C-alpha cells in the first residue's frame, strides 16, 4: 500500500461521509414534508423556502444540546454504542456503486459484504440498551436484537435469489445483468420480501417496535441526547437510504435499465441522476408506508417474520432454483412469483390483525382493578 493509495482512501471516505450527511439532511426534510402532506399539514415552513433549511437548523440544535450521562450508566459502552451503530452503516457504502464507475471499491463479494456488515449494527443497539441502565432502553435493546436477528433470514434469502439469478455477488455486474429486464419484473416476490424485511431491519414503521415511543419511549435511545443521539439518527437515515439504494440496484436495474445512451463522464452523471431518481422513489414509498400503517404488536411482528416471511423466502429460493435448473424461460419465474405473492396477500388479508394468543397479554377492565 503506497502513500497515494492511503490518500485516496482518506479522501474517498471523507467524500462519502459528506455525501451521506447531505443525503440524511435531505431525507429528514423530505420525510417531514411527505408525512405532513399525507396528514394534510404543511410541515416545516419557517426556515428557508418551504422549510428547506430546517434540517440544518435541527442539526445545529442537536449539536449545541447538552450531552447527558445517566449516573448509573456504564460510561465506556454508553459512549461506544453510537459509534458501533454508525460505523457499519457507513462501511456498507464502501461497496455500493452510485454509477458504473463511481464506487469506493467494487468488491467481488459485494452482496455478501453488505449482508455481513449490516448484521453488526445490532450490537450497537444492544450496547446502547444495556449501558443506559434504563428499563425501557434495555427492553428496546432486546426487542431490537430479537427483531433484527429474525428478519435477517428473509432479508438474506431475498438477496440470495437475486444472486442466483445474476450468477454473481458483484453489485456492478448485478446491475449489468439487468440491462434487458429489471429484476422487479422477474422476482416480484423477492422484491416484496426484501422491502418488508428491509423495513424491519431499519426498524421503521410498521416495524418500529424497538423504539416505539408509546411502548418503550424511544427504546435504546431514551437516555441519549445531543450529539450522540444525532449519531444514532444519522445512522438510521443512512440505513434507510442504503435499503432504498439497494432496492434500486438489485431490483429496479440501477442505472443500467433502461440503458444509458452516452459514454464517459456524461454516462456517469446521467447514471447518478437516474440512480437517485429510483432511490428516492423507493424512499417515498417507505415514507408513504410510514404515514399510513399502524405499528405491529411484538407478537404479530414475530409471527409475521417467522410464519410468513421465512417460509415465503424458502419458497422463493426453490422457485428460482427450479427455473434455473430446468432452464425454463424467465417469464415462468415471474408468473410463479406473482401467483405466490397473490396467495400470500390473500393469506395476509384473511388473517388481518392476527388473533391474540391466549396468555400473551391480559386485558383488565378498569372496574376489575378498582375492586
Amino acid at each position, binding site marked *: 500500500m503506497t502513500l497515494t493509495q492511503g490518500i485516496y482512501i482518506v479522501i474517498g471516505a471523507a467524500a462519502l461521509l459528506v455525501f451521506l450527511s447531505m443525503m440524511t439532511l435531505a431525507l429528514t426534510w423530505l420525510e417531514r414534508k411527505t408525512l405532513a402532506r399525507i396528514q394534510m399539514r404543511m410541515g416545516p415552513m419557517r426556515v428557508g423556502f418551504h422549510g428547506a433549511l430546517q434540517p440544518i437548523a435541527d442539526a445545529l440544535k442537536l449539536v449545541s444540546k447538552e450531552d447527558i450521562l445517566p449516573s448509573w450508566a*456504564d460510561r465506556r459502552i454508553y459512549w461506544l454504542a453510537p459509534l458501533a451503530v454508525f460505523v457499519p452503516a457507513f462501511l456498507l457504502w464502501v461497496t455500493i456503486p452510485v454509477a458504473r464507475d463511481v464506487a469506493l471499491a467494487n468488491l467481488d463479494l459485494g452482496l455478501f459484504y453488505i449482508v455481513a456488515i449490516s*448484521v453488526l449494527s*445490532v*450490537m450497537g443497539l*444492544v450496547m446502547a440498551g444495556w449501558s443506559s441502565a434504563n428499563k425501557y432502553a434495555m427492553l428496546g435493546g432486546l426487542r431490537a436484537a430479537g427483531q433484527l*436477528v429474525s428478519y*435477517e433470514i428473509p432479508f438474506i434469502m431475498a438477496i440470495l435469489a437475486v444472486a442466483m439469478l445474476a450468477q454473481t455477488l458483484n453489485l456492478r455486474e448485478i446491475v449489468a445483468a439487468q440491462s434487458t429486464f429489471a429484476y422487479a419484473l422477474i422476482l416480484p416476490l423477492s422484491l416484496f420480501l426484501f422491502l418488508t424485511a428491509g423495513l424491519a431491519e431499519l426498524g421503521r414503521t410498521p416495524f418500529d417496535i424497538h423504539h416505539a415511543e408509546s411502548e418503550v419511549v424511544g427504546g435504546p435511545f431514551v437516555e441519549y441526547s445531543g450529539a450522540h443521539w444525532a449519531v444514532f439518527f444519522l445512522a438510521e437515515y443512512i440505513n434507510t437510504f442504503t435499503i432504498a439504494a439497494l432496492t434500486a440496484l438489485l431490483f429496479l436495474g440501477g442505472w443500467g435499465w433502461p440503458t444509458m445512451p452516452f459514454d464517459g463522464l456524461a454516462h456517469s452523471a446521467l447514471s447518478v441522476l437516474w440512480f437517485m431518481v429510483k432511490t428516492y422513489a423507493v424512499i417515498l414509498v417507505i415514507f408513504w408506508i410510514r404515514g399510513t400503517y399502524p405499528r405491529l404488536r411484538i407478537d404479530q411482528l414475530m409471527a409475521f417474520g417467522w410464519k410468513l416471511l421465512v417460509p415465503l423466502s424458502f419458497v422463493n429460493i426453490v422457485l428460482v432454483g427450479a427455473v434455473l435448473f430446468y432452464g425454463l424461460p424467465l417469464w415462468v419465474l415471474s408468473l410463479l412469483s406473482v401467483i405466490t405473492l397473490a396467495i400470500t396477500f390473500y393469506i395476509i388479508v384473511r388473517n388481518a390483525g392476527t388473533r391474540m394468543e391466549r396468555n400473551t397479554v391480559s386485558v383488565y377492565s378498569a372496574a376489575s382493578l378498582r375492586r
Partner: protein
Amino acid sequence: MIITASLVLFYVAGAITLGGALVVVMSRNIVYAAFGLLASMVGVAGLFLIALAEFLALAQLLIYGGAVVIVILFALMLTRIEDFENLSDHPQWPIAAVVAIAVFGVIAATIIGTAAPESERVSLSFTALGSSLFTEWAIAFEVASLILLVALIGAVVMVRTSRGRD
C-alpha cells in the same frame, strides 16, 4: 526485519484479537466479557482478511458478530445471574495460569524451533472455495447442515417450558 503494511495491519488485528480475549477471561463484568468476545472475533476476521480469505472473514463477522454474541447476551439476560457484575474466579486460577503459560510456551518453542519454508501468501478465489465445498465436500456439508438442524431442535426442546408447570 522489514516493516510492511500487511505486518502493521497484522499486529493491529492480533492486538484486537488478544486484547478482546483477555477481556473475556479477566473482566469482572460478564457483559464486558461478551463485548470482549465480539472484539476478539472481529480481530480474527481481520486476521482472515490478512491471510487473503475474504469470504471467511465476512462469514466470521456474520456468524460471530451477528449471531453468537447476541445469543450469549440473550442467555445472560435470561439467567438473571446475581453476581452479574462481580464475578469471582475459581481458586485454582494460579494453576490455570501456569498451565496456560506452559501450553503457550511449548507451542511457541515448537513453532520457533521448526524451520518454516519461506513463502508468500497465496489467495484462493471464492469460486474455487465454493466448488470445492459443494462438489468434493458436499456430503460433509449436508451432514453439517443436519447437525445444525438437530442441535437447534435439541436446543428448542431443552429450553421449552411446558405449559402448566413452571
